Every structure is written in structure tokens, then in C-alpha cells.
């Protein structure tokens, strides 16, 4: 609240002082400077007043646009005794589309405030900039200084809370001295307080506690060529401020035309936001015309707030802030109902008017046809006219006056044609037309104007033909590039069948690589099967398999109660298992040496005893009788156990 009160105090005097200098000056001297020194660079120098009082600030503005590099190093020459404040520089870019080419222009707008110290008539300038290392200069300005207080009173401009041109107190910082009358009090007071900010300045909340930029674009959806308006506002929460170090928003996808190009001449308002008082000013208002369809973006604008309450983020650039990036959805006007001759971008509301002079000529002479397009929107660069043989329309001379009015771009463009008429008789020139799309109604319209008739008297053009002069005397006809070729095709022939390519078949590339891969895979499978069969055969012939087979045979023999066969099978199984386990051909070992031999080969004692016992049991089955002999079933189980234990030993060893 304290801050708000202080701001209010500052704002009041500032508003009073705004009655003093250049903002109240009514006359603007505008000089368009020719630029012979450097082609492609245009300079414009303006002064806020042609006459001022001694000590009064006069603002000088230099606008420089270049096709090449950006102008830089601006300088202003002033007579001795003058003091200069500034410069304050803002950059800008301009992109235009013409004849299929994008033209990119860069520029700067420079402001100085000059103060004179003695009366007289002075010449200011020329202001100069450097473009690509070359110095380009504008023209000089004439300024008349009169003694202080002798200038006629100037009308007050409301809404400017501070006076940037005051040499003594540009930001209203000086306190009122006790005992001295405030100079501002000499001005008649403004009865109604600060002007109320229009609705477009109002915001619900501040996005930054100190200062911020707000950008709006309307409408957010448009068609190619329709005007959308970009507005950028600056909000300062710490009292008055100045705009410094501005960088213009990029807008490469649009044609643009400035409506407000500087905040210097814009009214400033004080409005409450979130319970605080904010100073707001419109920085830019730019009419944009989309060049193509799509979601087009408008880049952020950067600006420095310079003032007593704003700490500098960068030296001499004030408190820097930037506006958000904006997007516009752009579509082409609908195809439905589009008239022939409509050119993309002709959007707005237009009327045509035409004038033809004279209405009576001799054949071979020309008449002047002036067609004037007037309306709002991007005023087209062309109109259509009726084509007919014997009437030759030369390229038009174009004059125009395109200006913003209530934030809408509009005006007129006049095309002055020289039309040569060769055929005698009463000739109807037909009409001039302009198809356009009206975004308000959403339909196409065609602006038309009748050109009327012209009476063409027999004259010089027909004389040679009438006299039968030789054709050789006439200028040679231009060479026809397509001479001898067929005429225009009046019928649409059959369409060639759509060509289907082999590679468009989904199976093509699969088969291409799949064939050899399939053969390779098949070969691999065959080889795999072969190896499996080989391995199976080897397994069939192994000692372990023999042992298992012998156990099976022993069981079968036991079932038959064939003791001899059981003994033979059990012996085969045990010997095969031993050979499989130890590589020991135990059949060749004497029975009495068998135990020691097995022990030497690492067979554990219990197993050795079981093996020997089993073999002894086999002898018993062969030779013993009655109760002495072991039962065949027991012998088989014993052998089976031995074979299994030996096999486990093999697996355990392998593991």
C-alpha cells in the first residue's frame, strides 16, 4: 500500500507536467530522406516539434530500414549549445512476399531528445546510421527555438503520467520543496483524475510482481490473408518507466503493418491489479496478414523497463521482460464456392470503381483505364479485366493509400492501365473484377465494375492493312516456342491405369530374402536331423545302453525262471556298466583279483563288495542248486542296483 501511495503521488505531478513539452506539440515535421548513399536503405527522420522553447525537449526519431544488414551506430549531429539525451534504440524486422520472393528488411527506430539553450533557428542533423560498414545519412531538420514562456500554449495530452523529455525530472522523482510553489500547480488541474484504462488494458492478475509484458492476438483463428492484430502491452508495478532496448517480435510467416510502432506517443494509464497500482502502456499494435496455412507463431517481444523503481538486469537495458510467444491457427479459405481467378490472400471487403478516358480514339491509339480498389483488409495488388483480341493492356501504374483506421488496415489502390486499341468499331471493354473472400460472412464475393464502351475510329493501325503493305514491313512476330505442336486438348482422354509396382507388393521383399533364407534353414534342419540320428546311434551302442539292455533281458529270464540266462545277463550288465564307468574290461580280470582291481580304479569298498557278491551269485545261479542258489529275482535287483549306482557315478563325474 505504501508503494501504491508513493506511485500515486508521482503520477499526479507527472501528468501535470505532460502539458509542457513535446507530447503537447501539435505539429509534426516529417521528412522522407532519400538514400542515394546506399541503395536499399530507407531513412526517415521526424521531430516532435518544429518550434519549441529554450530548455524544452524535442524528440527526434530516426527510422532506418535496410534490405541488407541491420542499420547500426546511429548518430545525430546537433549545433553547438545543444545537449542530447539518448539514443534509445529498438530494432525491427519486416518480411514481405512479392512475386514469389520473400523480402527480408531489417531496421531500427532511434529516439533522441535534444535541448537548446538559446533562441534562434537551427538545423539539426543529419542523423546517420551505418549499414554494412557504410554510413547512410538522412536529411536535416529545421528547429526554431523561442525564449522560454513565449511559445503559444499547447493543448494538453491526457493520460501521459510522466514526461520523458523533461531535462530536469524525467521520472517525476524530485520532491516538492516546502515553501516553493510546485511548478505543476501553475497548470490548470485536470478535474477528473487519471483517465480510466480501456477494457483492452485490463488484466485479472499480474504475471510478475514487478513488471511484465502481455501480448494478445485477435482473432486466434484466421484464413490466409485475413488481418489478425497483435497487441503488446507493458505493465510496470513500480511507478513510471521508459521503454528501452526493445526487440521486435519475430513474425516471419506474416506480412505486417504497424499500427502502433512505439510507446512514446501512447497514453499511459494507471490501473489496479491484485490490489496494487500498475502503470500500463501499449507498446505495439501490428496488423499481421498470414502468408500460408498452418499453426503460425509470433515470437516474443523483449523490452527493458527503465525507471527509478526498476532494477537493471543488464546495464543500460533496464529490467528486461519479454512477452509470451503466440500462435495463430491459419487455414486456407474454403474450396467450395471459390471463383476462378481468386488468388490466395485476397481477403477483406472491397469495391471497385473504374474510369476510362477518352471514350473515342483512333485505332492504334490508347485509352487510360483507371481501376480503383477500395476497402478493408489486405488491399489486393491486382484486378482482373476482360481479355479480347485487338485490346492490349500494358502493365499498370499503381498508386495507393493504405492506412490503419480503428486498428483495421484499409484504403485504396489504383491501377492505371494504358490500353491500346487496334480494331475499329465500338468496343466493349467488358468489366474489371476482383474475387475475394469476406471473412465476416465466410463467403466469396466478386467486386465488379463495368468499363463501358470505347468508339475506335479507323486510323493509323488499320491503314497498312488497308493499303496492302508487304508483310515484311511489319515487325517480326515473336518466335512461338510451341509452334508445330498439337492444339489444346478439348477432351479429357482416358486416364492411364495406375501403375502398380512390384515393390509395392507386401510379399515381394519377404520372398526376395525369404527364398535363400528358407533354403539355408532347410539345409540346417536336415543337418540337424542327421546329427541327431548319429547321436542316437552312438547312444544305442554305448556300454551303459548294453548294461540297461542286459538288465532287461535278466528280468525277462527271471520271469521265465531261466537261472542260467539270468546269470549271463547280470554278468553282462555289470561288466558293461564297469566298462562304461571306468573303462575297465573286468571280464578279463581274474575273479580273485577283481576286488583289488576295482579298488585300484577308485570303486568304493561297499560297491566292490556288492559287485563281487553279485558275480558270485551269478556263479551260484549257474552251478548251485536248491536252496544254495540265490533267487534269480534277487540277483536281478542286485545287478540293477549296481548298474544304477555306477551310472550315478558316471553322471556325478561328468557333473
Amino acid at each position, binding site marked *: 500500500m505504501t508503494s501504491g501511495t508513493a506511485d500515486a503521488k508521482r503520477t499526479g505531478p507527472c501528468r501535470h507536467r505532460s502539458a509542457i513539452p513535446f507530447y503537447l506539440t501539435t505539429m509534426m515535421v516529417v521528412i522522407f530522406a532519400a538514400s542515394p548513399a546506399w541503395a536499399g536503405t530507407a531513412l526517415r527522420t521526424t521531430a516532435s516539434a518544429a518550434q519549441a522553447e529554450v530548455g524544452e525537449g524535442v524528440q527526434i526519431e530516426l527510422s532506418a530500414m535496410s534490405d541488407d544488414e541491420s542499420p547500426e551506430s546511429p548518430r545525430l549531429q546537433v549545433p553547438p549549445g545543444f545537449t542530447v539525451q539518448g539514443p534509445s534504440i529498438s530494432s525491427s524486422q519486416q518480411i514481405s*512476399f512479392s*512475386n*514469389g520472393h520473400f523480402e527480408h528488411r531489417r531496421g531500427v527506430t532511434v529516439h533522441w531528445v535534444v535541448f537548446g539553450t538559446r533562441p534562434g533557428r537551427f538545423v539539426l542533423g543529419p542523423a546517420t546510421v551505418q549499414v554494412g560498414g557504410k554510413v547512410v545519412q538522412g536529411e536535416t531538420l529545421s528547429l526554431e527555438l523561442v525564449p522560454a514562456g513565449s511559445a503559444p500554449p499547447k493543448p494538453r495530452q491526457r493520460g501521459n503520467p510522466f514526461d520523458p523529455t523533461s531535462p530536469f525530472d524525467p521520472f517525476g522523482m524530485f520532491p516538492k520543496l516546502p515553501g516553493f510553489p510546485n511548478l505543476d500547480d501553475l497548470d490548470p488541474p485536470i478535474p477528473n483524475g487519471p483517465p480510466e484504462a480501456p477494457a483492452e488494458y485490463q488484466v485479472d492478475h499480474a504475471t510478475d510482481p514487478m513488471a511484465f509484458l502481455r501480448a494478445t492476438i485477435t482473432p486466434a483463428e484466421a484464413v490466409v490473408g485475413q488481418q489478425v492484430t497483435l497487441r503488446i502491452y507493458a505493465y510496470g508495478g513500480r511507478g513510471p518507466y521508459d521503454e528501452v532496448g526493445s526487440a521486435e517480435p519475430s513474425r516471419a510467416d506474416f506480412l505486417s503493418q504497424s499500427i502502433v510502432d512505439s510507446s512514446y506517443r501512447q497514453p499511459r494509464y494507471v490501473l489496479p491489479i491484485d490490489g496494487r497500482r500498475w502503470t500500463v502502456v501499449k507498446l505495439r499494435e501490428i496488423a499481421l496478414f498470414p502468408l500460408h496455412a498452418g499453426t503460425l507463431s509470433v515470437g516474443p517481444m523483449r523490452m527493458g523497463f527503465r525507471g527509478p523503481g526498476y532494477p537493471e538486469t543488464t546495464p543500460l537495458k533496464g529490467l528486461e521482460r519479454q512477452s509470451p510467444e503466440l500462435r495463430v491457427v491459419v487455414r486456407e479459405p474454403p474450396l467450395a464456392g471459390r471463383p476462378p481467378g481468386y488468388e490466395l490472400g485476397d481477403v477483406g471487403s472491397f469495391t471497385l470503381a473504374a474510369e476510362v478516358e477518352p471514350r473515342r480514339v483512333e485505332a492504334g491509339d490508347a485509352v487510360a483505364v483507371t481501376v480503383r480498389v477500395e476497402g478493408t483488409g489486405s488491399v489486393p495488388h491486382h484486378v482482373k479485366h476482360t*481479355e479480347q483480341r485487338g485490346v492490349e493492356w500494358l502493365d499498370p501504374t499503381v498508386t495507393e493509400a493504405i492506412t490503419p483506421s480503428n486498428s483495421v488496415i484499409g484504403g485504396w489502390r489504383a491501377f492505371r492501365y494504358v490500353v491500346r486499341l487496334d480494331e475499329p468499331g465500338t468496343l466493349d471493354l467488358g468489366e474489371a473484377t476482383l474475387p475475394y473472400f469476406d471473412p465476416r460472412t465466410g463467403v466469396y464475393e466478386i467486386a465488379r465494375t463495368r468499363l463501358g464502351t470505347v468508339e475506335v475510329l479507323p486510323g493509323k493501325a488499320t491503314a497498312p492493312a488497308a493499303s496492302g503493305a508487304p508483310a515484311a514491313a511489319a515487325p517480326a512476330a515473336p518466335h512461338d516456342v510451341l509452334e508445330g505442336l498439337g492444339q489444346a486438348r478439348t*477432351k479429357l482422354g482416358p486416364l492411364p491405369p495406375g501403375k502398380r509396382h512390384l*515393390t509395392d507388393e507386401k510379399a*515381394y521383399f519377404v520372398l526376395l530374402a525369404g527364398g535363400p533364407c528358407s*533354403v539355408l534353414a532347410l*539345409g540346417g534342419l536336415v543337418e540337424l536331423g542327421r546329427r541327431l540320428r548319429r547321436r542316437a546311434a552312438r547312444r544305442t551302442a554305448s556300454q551303459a545302453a548294453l548294461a540297461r539292455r542286459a538288465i532287461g533281458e535278466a528280468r525277462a529270464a527271471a520271469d521265465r525262471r531261466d537261472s542260467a540266462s539270468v546269470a549271463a545277463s547280470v554278468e553282462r550288465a555289470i561288466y558293461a556298466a564297469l566298462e562304461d564307468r571306468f573303462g575297465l574290461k573286468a571280464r578279463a580280470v581274474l575273479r580273485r583279483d577283481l576286488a583289488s582291481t576295482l579298488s585300484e580304479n577308485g570303486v568304493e569298498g561297499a560297491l566292490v563288495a556288492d559287485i563281487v557278491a553279485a558275480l558270485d551269485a551269478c556263479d551260484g545261479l549257474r552251478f548251485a542248486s536248491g536252496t544254495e542258489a540265490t533267487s534269480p529275482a534277487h540277483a536281478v535287483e542286485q545287478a540293477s542296483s549296481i548298474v544304477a549306482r555306477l551310472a550315478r557315478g558316471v553322471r556325478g563325474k561328468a557333473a
Partner: protein
Amino acid sequence: MTHQRSIPGRAWLAAAALTAAVVLWPSPAKAGDSTQELFDEAVAALHRGAVDDAIDRFELLADRGFFHPDASYDRALAYAERAQSHGARPGDFGRAAAALGETLLARPDDGDAKVALERIRQEIVRRRARTGASDVELKPSLGWAVVGLLDEDTWAVIAAIGSFATCVGLALRLWVRSAPVRLAGVVAGSLGMVMLIVAGSLAALSRSRRLHAEPAVVIVEEARLLDENGATISGAGTRLPEGALVDVEDRRGTLVRISWGTIDGWLSLGELRLLSHQ
């Protein structure tokens, strides 16, 4: 009785409504007729020498998505005629070349279109030479030149033959015991594999180009190549003449990435006309 009499009345009403709906409903045939009418009007305008009017109508046809090689041919004639008249506009010959390019894309054996395109290109070269502009003949890169040696389908057939030979060679090598036959299999398989890899790759490249690169023609007197930031590139071969045929490979805003011969770069979309095709 009353009820029975009302049935024929309702039937008549229904029949009348159905007839009205059929007559008044805008059918596809009706839309086709309007396209045909627009074409007829354009041709009539061309015959009476109103080339601007003809061009407007042909362009409106193109805007509506209508494509026909004969309409493109007539559009080319209109542009060529205007290019040689007092009302010539920059890029008219380029637009004529683009229209003929469309005709030839759809109907490669159109003799008149071939001759017309050749003459228009010669005229562009002649005019550029007259104004002192150096014309740059750019041949495609070696890789694309090889791809362009044969038609895409021809490469595809060669690759298929290579694949078959590879299969046979592998089979002989794997399953035949006779040494001479196995040797023949190795040779056939090796050659087939080379054919398969080379021709298959070229067919795939050719297909990729057909599907992903859009042909376009320069329709300004001279287009300067840009970098991806939109800054102009200087040097030899960075100025594309009117009528130059390029391949558009990518788009970014108003810029398109093109390849022209061995050079890649960016151009403004407004300097090109993309060729419509079926």
C-alpha cells in the same frame, strides 16, 4: 373405403418426394459435371486468346484436386502463351514446365508433352543466356545416377532372379554329392547373392525416392538456395534456374528441403510448384 383410398394418395406423395430428392440431391456425377464444365470453359478461353482467364480456371481445377494429364497439358499451353505475350509474368515458363512435368508423370509416353517440355527448357536457357545469367547444368550424384539407370520394376525383377539363383545354388551345394554340380551351385549362388543384394538395394532406393521425394519445378526466374535458417547460400550451383526439376525431401514452415543434382539445400515454398500426380 376411406382408408383404402388414402393409400394411393400417400404413395403418390412418397414417390414425388423421392423423385424430388433424387433430382435435387447433389450427386458425385453433378460434381464431376462441374469439373468438366470448368475444363470446357478453360479450353474455350484458351481458344479465344483469354489466357489469363484460362489459367484462372485451370488453376481452380488444380486447387480442387482435379488432376488429368490433358488438363495439365492445356495449362502448360496457357502459361507458355502468356509467357510469350505482353502480359507475361515472371515464372510463366517455369509453371508451363511444371504442368508438362505433371503430364509426363502420368503419361510418360506423351510425345507432344515431351517435345513441348524440351522446347520450353531450351527457351528458358536461351533467355537466361541472353540476360547473362550463367546456367548450371547439374547431373545427379553417382548413386542416384546408378539408381536411375533402370526402372524400379526392372531392378525388382533382377533382384528376384538373383534371389532364385541364390536358392538354386544353395540347394545344389547342400544336397548334391557330385563335385562338379556342387561347384556349379557355389558359382550360381554367389552370383545370385550379388545380384540380389545390389539390385534389391537399388529397387528399395528407387521405391523410397518414389514414395518420399516429391518432384517439384522452380517457377521463379531464379531461386537461391538457403540454409535451414533461411539465410542465402552463396557459391557455384546455388542458383536454381526457372524450370529446374528438384526433389522435395522435407518441409519446415515456408521452407522446403530439396535436392538438385548433387546439391541439397532449402528453398522458399513459393518458388516451387509441386507436381500433382495420380
